[in-house]
C-alpha cells in the first residue's frame, strides 16, 4: 500500500457497486464533481470502485439524479473501527499502559558495568559514580554525563580517563588508569647479592666494596656498601666520619641453575572412535534444561561447545549446543632413549626460563636421576652461568645507624 493509500485509509475508504444505463457515465459525472475514484472494476453491467468516505453523499446524489443504483460493498479505514475500539476500550487502555510502563521503566538505569580497571577496584569507581548520581535505579533524565566523568577523575586520582555511556537501561563506565614511571631509588642504598655465587668480575662506581673477586657470596649479602667511612690518619683525635651514599656498581658472578624434566615410559593415546552424540541445553538464571540429551552411553568423550547468550533483566539466558565425540584410551610403550630425549628437552626448556637473564652460559650438565624401577625417566640439567647478581637495597638507617637517626 502506497503512502497515499495509507492517508486515505486514515480518512476512510468506501467501495461501492453501481449499475444503471451506460455505467461509464457515472465515472465522468463523478469526475466532474471532483470525486476521486480508484480500483475501478467492470463486471458486466456493474461497475465497482472505491471512493473517499466524504464522497459517498455526493455520489448518492448523483445516483438519484441520473438514475443509478448504488450499493455499498465495503467500508475500510480507521473511522469505521472507532465503534469497535469504543467497545474494547480496555484493549486500548492496556496498550497505552504497556507503552507508558515501558517508557517509565526504560527511564531508569537497570545495570551498571565498570570496564578498564586494573589496580583500582571496580567498587571504588562504583562508589564514586554513585556519589555523582549514577547508580542502579537512578533516573536517566537527571544524569549529567560530563559532570559524572569529571567527578570520577577528581575522586580517584589514579584514573587518567573516564567515559560514561548510557545505552538503553545499561550504563557503562569506561576508565583508563594512569601508568606511573617506576620510581628510582635516590636515597642511600647498598648493592646486595640477588642470589648466591662466586664473584668473577666487579666494578664499583660509588660506595664501599665489601667483597672481592673469587669470594663466595650468598643471597642477600652486601656486595657494595652505601656506608662510606672517611678515615683521617693525619691527626689523632679526629673521629672517622661515615657518609651514606647510593652505592652503584656491577658485580658479575658464577651462579648455578637447575632445570627438571620427566617423561613417562608408557604413553596414553586417545583416539576418536567416530561415534558422535549431540546435546542442546538452555541455561537460565537458576537452572538448566536439556532440549536434547546426548547419548549417556558415551562416557569417555571429547566435547565441542557453541554457546549463544542473550541478556535479560533476570540474567543471562544461554543456548548451548555440544557435540560429544567418543574417545578410546590406549597405552603405548615408549623407548627409554626417546623418553630420555623428551625429559632432557623439557628440563632444558625449564632451565632456559630461569637463565633468560643470564649473560653467558659457562657450562651445562645433564644428569639422569630416576631409578630403574620407576616407570618414567627423570632428568636434571644444571647450568653454570655468568650474570650480574647486584640488586639495589635501600639502607635502613633506623636499624643500621640508630645513633645518627
Amino acid at each position, binding site marked *: 500500500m502506497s503512502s497515499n493509500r495509507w492517508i486515505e485509509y486514515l480518512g476512510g475508504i468506501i467501495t461501492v457497486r453501481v449499475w444503471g444505463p451506460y455505467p*461509464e457515465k457515472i*465515472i465522468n459525472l463523478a*469526475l466532474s464533481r471532483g470525486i*476521486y475514484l*480508484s*480500483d*475501478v472494476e*467492470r463486471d458486466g453491467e456493474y461497475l465497482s470502485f472505491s471512493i473517499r468516505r466524504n464522497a459517498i453523499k455526493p455520489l448518492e446524489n448523483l445516483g438519484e439524479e441520473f438514475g443509478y443504483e448504488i450499493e455499498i460493498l465495503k467500508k475500510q479505514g480507521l473511522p469505521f473501527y472507532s465503534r469497535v475500539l469504543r467497545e474494547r476500550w480496555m484493549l486500548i487502555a492496556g496498550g497505552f499502559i504497556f507503552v507508558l510502563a515501558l517508557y517509565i521503566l526504560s527511564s531508569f538505569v537497570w545495570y551498571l558495568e565498570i570496564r578498564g580497571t586494573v589496580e583500582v577496584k571496580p567498587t571504588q569507581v562504583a562508589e564514586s559514580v554513585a556519589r555523582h548520581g549514577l547508580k542502579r535505579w537512578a533516573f536517566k533524565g537527571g544524569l549529567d554525563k560530563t559532570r559524572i566523568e569529571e567527578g570520577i577523575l577528581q575522586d580517584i586520582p589514579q584514573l587518567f580517563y573516564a567515559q560514561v555511556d548510557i545505552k538503553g537501561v545499561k550504563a557503562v563506565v569506561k576508565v583508563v588508569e594512569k601508568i606511573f614511571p617506576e620510581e628510582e631509588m635516590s636515597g642511600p642504598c647498598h648493592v646486595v647479592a640477588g642470589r648466591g655465587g662466586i664473584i668473577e668480575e666487579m666494578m664499583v662506581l660509588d660506595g664501599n666494596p665489601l667483597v672481592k673477586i673469587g669470594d663466595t657470596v650468598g643471597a642477600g649479602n652486601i656486595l657494595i656498601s652505601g656506608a662510606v667511612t672517611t678515615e683521617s690518619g693525619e691527626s689523632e683525635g679526629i673521629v672517622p666520619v661515615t657518609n651514606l651514599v647510593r652505592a652503584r656498581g656491577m658485580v658479575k658472578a658464577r651462579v648455578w641453575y637447575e632445570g627438571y624434566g620427566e617423561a613417562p615410559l608408557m604413553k596414553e593415546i586417545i583416539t576418536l572412535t567416530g561415534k558422535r552424540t549431540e546435546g542442546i541445553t538452555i541455561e537460565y538464571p537458576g537452572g538448566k534444561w536439556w532440549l536434547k540429551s546426548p547419548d549417556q552411553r558415551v562416557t569417555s568423550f571429547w566435547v565441542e561447545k557453541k554457546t549463544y547468550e542473550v541478556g535479560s533483566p533476570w540474567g543471562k539466558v544461554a543456548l548451548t549446543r555440544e557435540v560429544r565425540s567418543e574417545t578410546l584410551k590406549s597405552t603405548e610403550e615408549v623407548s627409554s632413549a626417546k623418553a630420555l630425549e623428551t625429559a632432557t628437552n623439557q628440563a632444558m626448556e625449564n632451565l632456559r626460563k630461569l637463565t633468560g637473564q643470564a649473560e653467558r652460559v659457562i657450562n651445562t650438565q645433564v644428569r639422569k636421576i630416576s631409578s630403574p624401577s620407576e616407570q618414567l625417566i627423570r632428568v636434571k640439567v644444571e647450568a653454570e652461568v655468568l650474570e650480574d647478581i647486584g640488586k639495589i637495597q635501600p639502607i635502613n638507617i633506623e636499624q643500621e645507624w640508630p645513633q645518627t637517626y
Partner: protein
Amino acid sequence: MPRNPGDKIEKLMGDMLDLPKDLVLELPRLIIIGNKELYLQNHKGIIDYSHELIRINLVRGYLEVQGESLQIRTIIPDEITIAGKISGVKFIE
C-alpha cells in the same frame, strides 16, 4: 492539427516561446511503463470501459487502449492510471 484560429495562435505562440504542448494545447501526456501500466494526463472522461478495451476521451479525438485484464487503477479530473496487460494504444481523431 489546430482547427480554429484560436488554436492556431496558441500553437504559434507555443512554438515561438518553446512552451510544452501538453500545457498550451492540452494535448495528452502519456507515460507507459512496460506493458503493465499506462499513465495519462489531460483526459476528458471515459467513453467505454471493459477488461479488453478502454476508450478515453481527449480534447481532440480519443485514445484507445487495448489489452487483457485492464483496470482503471485511479482516475481524477485530469489524470488516469490504467493497469493490466496492455497490447496496443491508438489515437483516433
